C-alpha cells in the first residue's frame, strides 16, 4: 500500500512528466476527466496549476451521487420513512438534498438509515434483523454493481428473505455517448475512469476513437497516474492519432474483470435510466432480472414520494455534462456550500462543485 502511495507521488517524476507535457502541448485542448475521483485527485494534488495554459480540464458525470435523479432519491427517502424498513446506503448519499428532504433529515426524524461500506455489511444487517426488511440503496457505476450483484446471489444462496436492493446503478460508456451526442461543447480527449474500467475493460472505450475520433486514456488516481495519462492523451491529440490507451495497467486489462462482469449480468439486465443532467439515456442503467426479482425493492414496496422538484438555479446538470464550471453557477459559494448544499455536486465527495469549493478557493 505504502509503495503505491510513495512511488506514485514522487515529486521528481512528477516534475519530469509536467515538463514533458509542457513541451509536447502546442495547441489548446479540452480534456474531460470522466470520473469524480479524478477531479478530486487533480485538485487535491494541485495538478491544474502545473499544466500549461493550452490544456483545459473539464469534469464529467462520473459521480454516481451527482447523477442520481431526484425522483430516485425521493423514492429512497420515502421508503426509509416506512415503518420497520432499514435503509442501508453508502455514506455519500446521506446529505444529498432531494425534492423536499434528505436521508440525513429522514434519519433525524426517526427513519432507520444506516451507512455501510459495502453490501456485505447490508446483508449482515439483514441477517441480524430478520423481522425487518433491509433495503440497500444501489447507487454507483460498474465499479460497485458487481458487488451488489454478488450480495443478491449470496442472499439467494442463503435464503435471506428480508434483503432488498433498490437498483439505481448506471453505466458509464452510454453516458459518455450521450454527452458527446449532445454536442454542447468541444472535447478533444477523455480521461477514462480507472476503477470502472478495471471492471468493464479498456476495450469498452474503443467506440470513442472509432465513432467520435476521440482519444481516451485510462488512468489511475495517483498524481503520477494522472500526469502520465494527460501526457499520453496530449501526445495522441498532437499526432492526430485517436486511440484508447491504458496507463493503469496495474489494474486494468483490455477485457476487464470477467468474473465481476459475469456476476453483474447474471443478476442485472441493461435498461434505460434517468440521469440528473442528461435526462433519460437508453441502455444506461441496470434492472434486476426475473429470477431475482424478489430482491428488487421496487417490486416489493409501493411508496409515493410526491412530485419531483428540481432545485432552482442549480447548475449541477450543466456541470455534470462539462458545459459549465461550478464558479459559473450563481448559487456557487454564495448560497450553495458544503455546509448548506443545494444540489448533489456540492455534497458528494466526488462532486465537481465540492472539489472546486474545497480545493480551489477563490483563485480558480
Amino acid at each position, binding site marked *: 500500500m505504502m509503495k503505491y*502511495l510513495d512511488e506514485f507521488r514522487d515529486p521528481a517524476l512528477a*516534475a519530469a512528466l509536467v515538463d514533458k507535457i509542457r513541451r509536447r502541448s502546442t495547441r489548446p485542448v479540452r480534456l474531460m476527466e470522466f470520473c469524480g475521483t479524478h477531479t478530486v485527485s487533480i485538485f487535491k*494534488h494541485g495538478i491544474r496549476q502545473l499544466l500549461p495554459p493550452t490544456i483545459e480540464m473539464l469534469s464529467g458525470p462520473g459521480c454516481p451521487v451527482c447523477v442520481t435523479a431526484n425522483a430516485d432519491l425521493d423514492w429512497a427517502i420515502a421508503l426509509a420513512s416506512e415503518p420497520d424498513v432499514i435503509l442501508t446506503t*453508502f*455514506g455519500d448519499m446521506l*446529505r444529498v438534498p432531494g425534492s423536499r428532504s434528505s436521508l440525513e433529515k429522514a434519519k433525524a426524524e426517526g427513519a432507520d438509515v444506516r451507512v*455501510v461500506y459495502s453490501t456485505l455489511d447490508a446483508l449482515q444487517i439483514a441477517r441480524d434483523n430478520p423481522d425487518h426488511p433491509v433495503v440497500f440503496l444501489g447507487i454507483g457505476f460498474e*465499479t460497485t454493481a458487481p458487488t451488489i450483484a454478488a450480495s443478491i446471489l449470496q442472499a439467494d444462496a442463503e435464503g435471506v428473505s428480508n434483503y432488498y436492493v433498490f437498483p439505481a446503478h448506471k453505466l458509464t460508456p452510454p453516458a459518455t455517448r450521450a454527452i458527446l451526442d449532445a454536442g454542447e461543447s468541444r472535447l478533444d480527449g477523455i480521461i477514462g475512469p480507472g476503477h470502472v474500467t478495471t471492471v468493464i475493460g479498456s476495450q469498452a472505450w474503443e467506440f470513442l476513437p472509432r465513432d467520435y475520433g476521440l482519444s481516451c486514456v485510462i488512468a489511475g488516481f495517483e498524481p503520477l497516474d494522472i*500526469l502520465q495519462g494527460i501526457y499520453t492523451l496530449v501526445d495522441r491529440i498532437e499526432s492526430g492519432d485517436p486511440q484508447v490507451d491504458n496507463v493503469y495497467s496495474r489494474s486494468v486489462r483490455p477485457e476487464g474483470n470477467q468474473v465481476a462482469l459475469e456476476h453483474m449480468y447474471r443478476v442485472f439486465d441493461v435498461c434505460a435510466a434517468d440521469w440528473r443532467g442528461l435526462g433519460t439515456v437508453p441502455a444506461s442503467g441496470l434492472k434486476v432480472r426475473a429470477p431475482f426479482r424478489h430482491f428488487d425493492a421496487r417490486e416489493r414496496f409501493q411508496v409515493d414520494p410526491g412530485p419531483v422538484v428540481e432545485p432552482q438555479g442549480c447548475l449541477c446538470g450543466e456541470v455534470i455534462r462539462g458545459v459549465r464550471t461550478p464558479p459559473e453557477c450563481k448559487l456557487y459559494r454564495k448560497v450553495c456550500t458544503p*455546509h448548506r448544499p443545494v444540489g448533489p455536486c456540492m455534497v458528494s465527495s466526488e462532486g465537481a462543485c465540492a472539489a472546486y469549493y474545497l480545493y480551489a478557493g477563490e483563485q480558480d
Partner: protein
Amino acid sequence: MNRILLAHGSGGRLSHDLICDLFLPHFTAPALARLDDAAVVEPGEALPTKRQLEFTDSRRLAFTTDSYVVKPLFFNGGDIGRLAVCGTVNDLAMVGATPLYLSAGFIIEEGLELDVLREVVASMRASAQEAAVEIVAGDTKVVEKGGADQLFISTAGLGIVPDGIEISASNARPGDVVIVSGAIGDHGIAVLSEREGLAFKTELESDVAPLNHLVADMMQASSHIHVLRDPTRGGLGTSLNEIAQQSQVGIAIEEHRIPVRDGVRAACEMLGYDPLYVANEGKLVAVIDREDADQILEAMRAHPYAEEAAIIGEVTAEPKGKVLLRTGIGGTRVVDMLAGEILPRIC
C-alpha cells in the same frame, strides 16, 4: 450488586457509598475529601510534582469546560477518562496556563457495570497524576436505561496564566513559523477502527496525552510563542483555519513536512478521509516567532510527546484567513475547514 442503579444517583445512601467506595479511592485531593458542596483551594499549596510558579504576580485565571461522549469507552491507547482529563488539561495549556484543578461530572446510564466505571476513574487518576492536576470537585447523575449512551463525562478546568504570557489564536504574525508536535490523525483513526461496523486491523493507538509539561518546556525555551492550539475534532486543517481567520493572516504549509504515520495514511486512503481533518488528542500546533524556531523545536523534540515535532509551514500576510497547501508534487491547493461529518466515500 455490580451495576449502577438509579438509586446511585438519588443523593442518598447509595450515592454516598458510590462516592466513598468508587471515586474517593482514586480522586484523593484533600479539597475533595472534605465532601463539602464546593472545593476550597489555595493555589499556593503546590502539588509535590508541580513546577515552581510565581503565584503572587499572576492575576489571571484560565477556565475551561468540556464534555466527553466518545464511543467506544475504551479504545487502543486510551479511554473516556483519560480523554476527559487530558482534553481539559490541554485546553488550559493552550493559553499558556498552568493547569491546577479539574472538576468531573458523570452522567451514567442505569445498568453500567461498576467495574467499567472503576476502570474509567482509575484511568482519570493516573492521567491527573501525570499532568500534576487535582480533581477537586465531582458530580454523579444516573439516568434511566436509554437516557445516555453508557457514560458521559463533563469537566471544567482551572489554571493560572503567568504574567506576561499572551498566547492566543489571534496573535499569529506574518513571518511566524508553524510547528506541529508530531504525527497527525492517530486518535481519530484509532477510535474509528474500534467502532462497530468499521473494523479493520491496525496497530494504531490514540495519541491522547496531557501536553502541559511539554508546553511548560516550550515556554522555558522561548517567550515568543504566539499561538498554541490542540487540533481535536476537525483536525489540523480546521485548527489552522481558525488561526488564520482569528489572526487575519494567511498560512502556507507543505504537505511533505506534515508527519503522518503509515497506518493512518493507509487507513485514510482506504476510507476516503484526509488526515488533515482527523482528530488528535495529544498533539499541538504552535505558531512562533521565526527567530526562536530552533530552540523551541529542540525543547519539543526532547519531550516524549513531541519527538517528531516538525516545522510544517509559515504565516503570510495574504491571503487573509486562508490556509494554502503546497502538495507533495509541487501543486497548490486550499485547505478549508471541515464541512460537516467526514463520511466515507462511495467508490
